[in-house]
């Protein structure tokens, strides 16, 4: 049996089984449990890489659950798919890589960071469950299945944010987040039900072929956009982000960054693959652009006034989500016009490239902030100071992350932001200018944050502070290396990782044909 044929289900199934096995393994001791969780995520990462390689080489992969055979999408004699079908294209594989890297590094970082808490087997179980949910959301080709995995990520993420129940703010942030996630999830379910009621199908590819953009479809689209922008933390649905990020343990915050990006994945998948040219691209594109601009503006201006380091990073992260919406929104606005090839596709590449860069440098910043609070017990920038004397490596990692988020060369944030500026400028110069100004402000924010935390004389309170332990330094080192490498060789990354993902979004017919076969493409 060819094990590689089953990779699409294995990336979901292995972490899911691992999640429920973790409490059992936990009986054998803390060390066994930690290694088990890391082993499961390592295995999943290897599978995700294998999946990405195969998809990038030979186009979308489909996997039928419970069918006569795994590649047989249509039951004999029928013209529509009735089973749950997983479909992995370039975009899904791209996100699967991000999820794999962040969850694996998060688990390694957790071994030292969260040690000493009780109930850790549940912590790792929830982490694996979150990974399973996120993988599920990106590999599924079924609308209801998408909702189920969305709810799995909501529940697991809430459990992890609220994990440190001793802190009042954890439960408060988790409650706020859960209420909003729930409303978003129900909006998605309602939208799925509306589509099902009209077309009698749940498969994205089949729906994409039938969809007519009637009034009900417009309502469904609005519900999808609202719910998924909420999950992505875009302004004006961002208020849970700055509460939930600081309340979560640092490694979870990093995984949560990937989790919000899955919201973007859903948004792109719905807009490009499900509706495609049937929606009015200019209008919906502009809505996405405006969401992006609002996120950039509010995110940056709220970050200026923060005194809590993690809250500051969270707000500037909202601004970065805005860049991703801006880039892909421009691509959506010119979908189907000649401008797509002259700059629209480039803008989408910039936005998508920014997603993977953001996962790395934002994760790095959160881990560095976690290392600081792990050693000093505070994240308040007014109390911190002079830490560069004691935590030299953390300081270097923070500089790398800060420079990347502000878009300084030669770090990865510069590479993707440059593509966004160039292509958005051709679409509308004012948008590019706003994006550029926000970047400069971000630089100022991080200069100040670095200065107040690391620079200055050694404070007496932090005289005995040591560097963070090795298991925390390792994930930060990996992320820092990736941040620098992606900044030094952006051409290679864009060519091999980003372009296939962007092409997968634009090429709706390929997604449909993978399930329904050639000749049954867009009607």
């Amino acid at each position: 049996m060819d094990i590689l044929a089953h990779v699409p289900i294995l990336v979901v199934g292995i972490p899911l089984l691992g999640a429920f096995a973790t409490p059992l393994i936990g009986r054998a001791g803390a060390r066994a449990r930690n290694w088990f969780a890391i082993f499961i995520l390592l295995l999943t990462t290897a599978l995700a890489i294998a999946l990405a390689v195969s998809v990038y080489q030979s186009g979308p992969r489909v996997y039928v659950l419970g069918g006569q055979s795994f590649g047989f999408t249509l039951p004999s004699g029928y013209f529509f798919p009735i089973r749950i079908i997983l479909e992995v294209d370039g975009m899904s594989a791209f996100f699967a890589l991000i999820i794999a890297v962040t969850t694996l590094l998060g688990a390694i970082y957790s071994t030292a960071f969260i040690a000493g808490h009780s109930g850790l087997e549940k912590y790792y179980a929830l982490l694996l469950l979150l990974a399973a949910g996120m993988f599920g959301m990106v590999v599924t080709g079924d609308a209801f299945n998408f909702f189920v995995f969305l709810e799995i990520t909501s529940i697991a993420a809430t459990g992890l944010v609220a994990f440190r129940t001793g802190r009042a703010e954890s439960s408060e942030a988790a409650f706020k987040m859960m209420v909003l996630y729930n409303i978003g999830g129900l909006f998605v379910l309602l939208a799925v039900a509306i589509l099902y009621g009209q077309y009698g199908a749940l498969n994205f590819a089949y729906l994409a072929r039938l969809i007519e953009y009637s009034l009900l479809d417009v309502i469904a689209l609005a519900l999808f956009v609202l719910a998924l922008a909420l999950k992505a933390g875009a302004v004006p649905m961002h208020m849970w982000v700055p509460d939930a990020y600081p309340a979560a343990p640092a490694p979870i915050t990093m995984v949560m960054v990937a989790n919000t990006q899955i919201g973007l994945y859903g948004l792109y998948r719905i807009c490009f693959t499900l509706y495609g040219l049937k929606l009015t691209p200019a209008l919906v594109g502009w809505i996405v652009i405006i969401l992006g601009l609002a996120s950039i503006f509010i995110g940056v201006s709220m970050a200026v006034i923060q005194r809590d380091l993690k809250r500051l990073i969270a707000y500037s992260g909202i601004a970065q989500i805005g860049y991703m919406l801006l880039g892909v929104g421009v691509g959506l606005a010119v979908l189907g016009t000649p401008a797509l090839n002259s700059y629209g596709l480039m803008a989408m590449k910039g936005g998508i490239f920014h997603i993977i860069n953001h996962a790395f440098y934002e994760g790095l910043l959160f881990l560095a902030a976690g290392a600081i609070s792990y050693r000093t017990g505070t994240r308040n920038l007014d109390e911190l100071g002079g830490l560069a004397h004691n935590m030299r490596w953390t300081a270097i990692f923070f500089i790398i992350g800060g420079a990347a988020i502000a878009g300084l060369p030669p770090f990865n944030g510069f590479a993707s932001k440059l593509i966004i500026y160039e292509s958005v400028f051709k679409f509308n110069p004012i948008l590019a200018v706003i994006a550029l100004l926000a970047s400069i402000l971000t630089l100022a924010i991080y200069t100040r944050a670095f200065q107040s935390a690391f620079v200055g004389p050694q404070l007496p309170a932090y005289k005995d502070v040591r560097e963070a332990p090795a298991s925390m330094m390792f994930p930060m080192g990996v992320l820092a290396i990736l941040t620098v490498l992606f900044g030094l060789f952006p051409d290679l990354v864009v060519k091999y990782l980003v372009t296939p993902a962007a092409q997968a979004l634009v090429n709706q017919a390929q997604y449909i044909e993978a399930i329904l076969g050639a000749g049954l493409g867009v009607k």
Partner: protein
Amino acid sequence: MIANFPYVTAILLMIFGLYAALFRRNLVKIAIGITLMESGVNLFLVSLGYRRGGIAPIYTLAPEAGERMVLPTPQALTLTSIVIGLATTAVLLALIVVIYRHYGTLDADKINKLRG
């Protein structure tokens, strides 16, 4: 007209639930609002699957040619969504218990360590 009644009820339930979840200040009432919304969506889903005179798709009841069997997908979806709803409600209520232990109140206006 009368056939649309379940849909109208479902939409009303959702609107009431959304209102309670967004504008009520008591955490338990917020949770109830979420549950109401859930019921509305579930009602909507399950009423999509209703066919007058349809037969349940059970193998031993397989109808003669020409009669209608009902596709069980909406019922299956509704069941799944009810189970998910149970899990999310449990998480919400558990969080409410923890919040009450910390703050001694369920008033959302007094639970405000996180602002700005």
